[in-house]
């Protein structure tokens, strides 16, 4: 069997000392293929964000290994773009400055940078807002900027940490469609953390359910059917059935006595 694209082996993550140790993650094994869209869903405290930060290289595991294309992950890098729920944008930079930030760090010429920034600003429908500061934008627009900022560095993998968690339901649905469209166009690999089961099914071609105390992978679901852009998946019986199965899996975690 060929080595997988992104490979997590026996990843453990502990916080604190001896008797008061918290197992944020225990024995995580996960293989992610190139161009896959994987969503991770689970109750709070299951370590799903920690898992994402490990892939991002912001944290180091207590034990186990993480490899991308066979190379160990040793720190953050522009090959892995991240969008956080909040505070990914630099408040002192305009939309243009934020989207072009990573390109500036790569010492790209101003003309070339502007050309790429324009393309990504267009992609996330923010034409005309280039000179606004983040605090002048709505939450949904800020997350569009954050997405464009991450994409402009042309990462191989897009890491998304509950990016739409703070948005209202309508805006969330619209941005979900945009992320799916961008994923199809750019053929990125996406790792998307959410606490929303419907979002997990609407986006992920594979859905990983996690459990808490200790944080671990409980079950993995293959979606097995396509969700088209803008599809009203409420009317799709396969969608409803899968959503229900995953919801039951997640719900059991809330009913289970803490281990």
């Amino acid at each position, binding site marked *: 069997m060929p080595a997988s694209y992104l490979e997590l082996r026996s990843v453990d993550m502990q916080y604190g000392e001896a008797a008061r140790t918290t197992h944020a993650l225990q024995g995580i094994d996960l293989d992610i293929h190139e161009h896959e869209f994987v969503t991770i869903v689970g109750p709070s405290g299951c370590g799903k964000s920690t898992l994402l*930060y490990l892939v*991002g290289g*912001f944290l180091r595991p207590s034990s186990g290994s993480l490899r991308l294309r066979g190379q160990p992950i040793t*720190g*953050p*890098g*522009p090959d*892995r*773009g*991240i969008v*956080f729920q*909040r*505070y*990914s*944008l*630099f*408040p*002192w*930079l*305009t939309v243009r400055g934020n989207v072009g*930030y*990573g390109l500036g*760090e*790569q010492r790209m010429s101003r003309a070339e940078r502007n050309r790429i920034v324009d393309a990504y600003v267009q992609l996330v429908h923010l034409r005309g807002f280039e000179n606004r*500061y*983040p*605090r002048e934008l709505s939450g949904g627009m800020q997350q569009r900027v954050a997405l464009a*900022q*991450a994409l402009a*560095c042309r990462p191989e993998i897009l890491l998304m940490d509950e990016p739409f968690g703070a948005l209202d339901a309508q805006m969330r649905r619209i941005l979900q469609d945009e992320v799916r469209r961008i994923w199809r166009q750019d053929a990125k690999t996406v790792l998307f953390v959410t606490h929303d089961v419907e979002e997990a099914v609407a986006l992920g071609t594979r859905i990983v359910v996690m459990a808490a105390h200790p944080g671990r992978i409980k079950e993995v679901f293959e979606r097995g059917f396509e969700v088209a852009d803008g599809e009203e998946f409420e009317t799709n019986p396969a969608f409803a059935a899968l959503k229900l199965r995953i919801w039951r899996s997640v719900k059991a975690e809330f009913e289970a006595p803490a281990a």
Partner: protein
Amino acid sequence: MKVFPVVKIVPLLLLAAAWQTASVSRLLPASVLPSFWDVAASLGAMMRSGELITHTLASFARAGGGFFLAVGIGIALGLLMARIRIVERALEPILLLIYPVPKPAMIPLFMVWLGIGNASKVAVIVLACLLPIVNTTFNGVRSVDQTLIWSAQARGTSSRRLLWRVVLPAALPQIATGVRTAIAIAIIVMVSSEFIASESGLGYLIFSYGGVGADDAMLAVVIYLATLGFLVDRCYLAGLQHLIAWHAFAH
């Protein structure tokens, strides 16, 4: 921040009118307080003679020198304390000890060390201005959001460049409030230091006119100083509004 509206001058004009009325009606004898008109006349005379300008330049050279030194040293110290644990451990008790000391009380000691000239005065101004700047820089740097730093790292910013690209800009609004406090402190300590062994400066003018009983001239300098302090603060806020237009408190 709004432009200072003219309507806010009205209470000051009323106060001046009440003062003048009290003086003219002998309710407030000149031995207690010279009339507003006499004070205003002294102010005019001192401005025309150039006396005020000369002493203003002497004062602001001291205050400005001490203030700008304190900004540089204060930001550097606050930054080092926030980033290096051993520096924080070493400096924190010393700063806590200096904090409640009235800084003008240090002037005689500084004069023993640095002489009675400008050096000791500037040194006291530096010391007094340092604390709010160190404090706000430390807090500003410590409260930079972790995700902002991670975000920059994920877009290719090296740890060496993080300071300039993320940490300082993010801490700037807080540092700016400390700098504003330091401006006020610089003016206060400047005047106090000029009370002692000085032959120039606005503090020297106040002290020497007060000493010879020229209360109208003394008060004229005090009012002039208050106006100047106010204008410096407004200029600072206007500059700040331009520099950190992105931040909510600038509006």
